[in-house]
């Protein structure tokens, strides 16, 4: 058992030592043919924390995220969500389980407005059958109004008011990243998976996004798991960090632990000459 969290913790205080981990990966191994993407990786994520997974290119970060979201099926190991084992996660059931994710290369619905992009994820299977939608019967109308109201809240939360009715395809990049985060949040997920939320952003956008992720965690009391390349962002944002290298977990702990870990420094020095500065700097 890891010691009780003493670093930053959750501002809402919903960390509990007795509750089962929000997510636990138990000895996950994943291979594609002869290529081992993940070897015996175990990972625990506490409720309400911001948990980062870092590592050099090809370390297996995206594979891990894809295992959690059911895109890949591991050869061995098990996934536990709030203590419940999931031998197989069906991507189509992901929202029902309470997992939402964003994608590295934006996966928005370009033909829909900002509001519709967000509202559509509220309860896509609710709101009555086609006929009651078509005739705007009370049930369908209520569901649509509820989705619109909640989407509107998120539009304001993410400062997207000026784009509300614009088609998403025409928005600047940083705004689209925010729409995707809002779409993930409207379903009130227990687990929020973020695949490189800062990819392709400038300094200001990264700063804003860091604030958004933190305040989204606080306001929606969700547990955040994120993959990110920008180490200064990761160090600043995370409660705990796991480090992968060649499909193995080589370190796991608070940002301070990871920053001074010899294996981590070696992994980054050995593979990539740009990142160690990030490790030692902030």
């Amino acid at each position, binding site marked *: 058992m890891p010691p009780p969290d003493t670093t930053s913790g959750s501002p809402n205080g919903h960390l509990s030592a007795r509750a089962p981990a929000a997510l636990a990966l138990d000895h996950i191994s994943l291979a594609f043919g002869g290529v081992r993407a993940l070897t015996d990786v175990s990972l625990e994520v506490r409720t309400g924390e911001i948990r980062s997974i870092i590592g050099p290119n090809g370390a297996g970060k995206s594979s891990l995220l894809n295992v959690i*979201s059911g895109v890949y099926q591991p050869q061995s190991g098990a996934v536990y969500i709030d203590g419940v084992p999931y031998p197989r996660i069906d*991507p*189509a059931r*992901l*929202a*029902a389980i309470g997992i*939402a*994710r964003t*994608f590295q290369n934006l*996966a*928005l*619905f*370009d*033909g*829909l407005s900002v509001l*519709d992009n967000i509202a*559509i*994820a509220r*309860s*896509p*299977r609710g*709101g009555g059958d*086609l006929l009651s*939608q*078509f005739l705007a019967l009370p049930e*369908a109308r209520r*569901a*649509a109004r509820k989705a619109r109201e909640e989407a509107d809240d998120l539009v304001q939360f993410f400062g997207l008011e000026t784009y509300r009715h614009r088609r998403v395809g025409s928005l600047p990049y940083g705004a689209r990243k925010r729409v995707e985060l809002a*779409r993930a949040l409207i*379903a009130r997920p227990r687990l929020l998976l973020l695949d490189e939320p800062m990819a392709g952003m400038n300094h200001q956008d990264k700063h804003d996004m860091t604030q958004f992720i933190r305040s989204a965690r606080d306001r929606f009391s969700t547990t955040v798991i994120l993959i990110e390349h920008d180490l200064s962002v990761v160090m600043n944002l995370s409660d705990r960090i796991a480090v992968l290298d060649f499909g193995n977990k080589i370190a796991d702990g608070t940002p301070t632990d990871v920053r001074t870990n010899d294996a981590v420094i070696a992994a980054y020095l050995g593979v990539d000459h740009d990142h160690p500065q990030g490790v030692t700097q902030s």
Partner: protein
Amino acid sequence: MTSLSTVRQQVLAGIDSHLVRRLAGPLLILLAAYGIVPLVADQYVIESLLLPFLSLSLAAVGLNLLTGSAGQLSLGTAAFMAVGAYGAYNVVLRLPWVPMLLAFVLGGIAAAAIGIVFGLPSLRLRGFYLAVSTLAAQFFVQWVFTKFSWFSNDNTSGVITAPQLRAFGLVFSEPTARYLFCLTVVMLLGLAAERLLATTTGKHFIAIRDNELAARIIGVPVLKTKITAFALSSFIIGVAGALWAFAYIRTVEPHGFNLDRSFQILFIIIIGGLGSIRGSFLGAAFIVVLPLVLSRLGSAIFGGIFDSGVVEMCQRMIIGVLIILFLILEPDGLAAVGRRLGPTLRRLLWRQ
């Protein structure tokens, strides 16, 4: 007090002018379509322009739901039209007590059933591969109606002659009457399609078109939505086929619903605007009017050498070039061009 009432007036005026601006266009078009066209259009204009325009528009509205909005490419449109036409014909023939409008609905339902069957591969296939599997519908349906003369009341070549249009105790035999009948059916189904796109299901169509994986992951019922798209699209296309057979050409052979017709309707939605109901009408108008304009222009300039063969060839070349241009330069088609020209035109009109 005074300021409050002025505010109220301003708000009311704002609502009024907003509503008026939104409804003025459609109302004017309806007024013209119902009030003016029947008075001024002669038999030729109705028979060879307006009736095919209306039937093709409706087929395009149907295909646009499936291909334009839900992103499922289909080359089986003419097959679904044929099922609608032959289905309605057989209902009228074999169950004479069924009102003709209901026969149209049943024809549409038959087309929807066939559409669902040939839409099932869409659960596995997409894009080009799906198009090829809908092509199977095209050849299969045409073969069935040619091979089994039962469907055409034992006519050896599969030709059917549609009975007179009847509804609500009225007989629609004159061209103008058939035009009004068609117009009403097309208008109602066009409005229904527009309404459908505003529902949650309509938004699911677009979500699946734009990013199927993301749609699946946020919980959109992808399989159900795709099948719904095939069913509703084929229903509308089936009714369009029934209109084509009963109101427009009236003597139909299976060959009239061949692959060329499927492509023609696909071209209509590409030129008119993918995913746009209005675009379906604009594209159909363009496709119907183009040969006429070409032959008039051609014979005015070149005289006798510009015969129907040359017109046909020019038409193919022009449509081919336009498809390429629209796909590259304006994927939203004539509908988007209209949207952009609209304000300019309005300004010019108001100034005069």
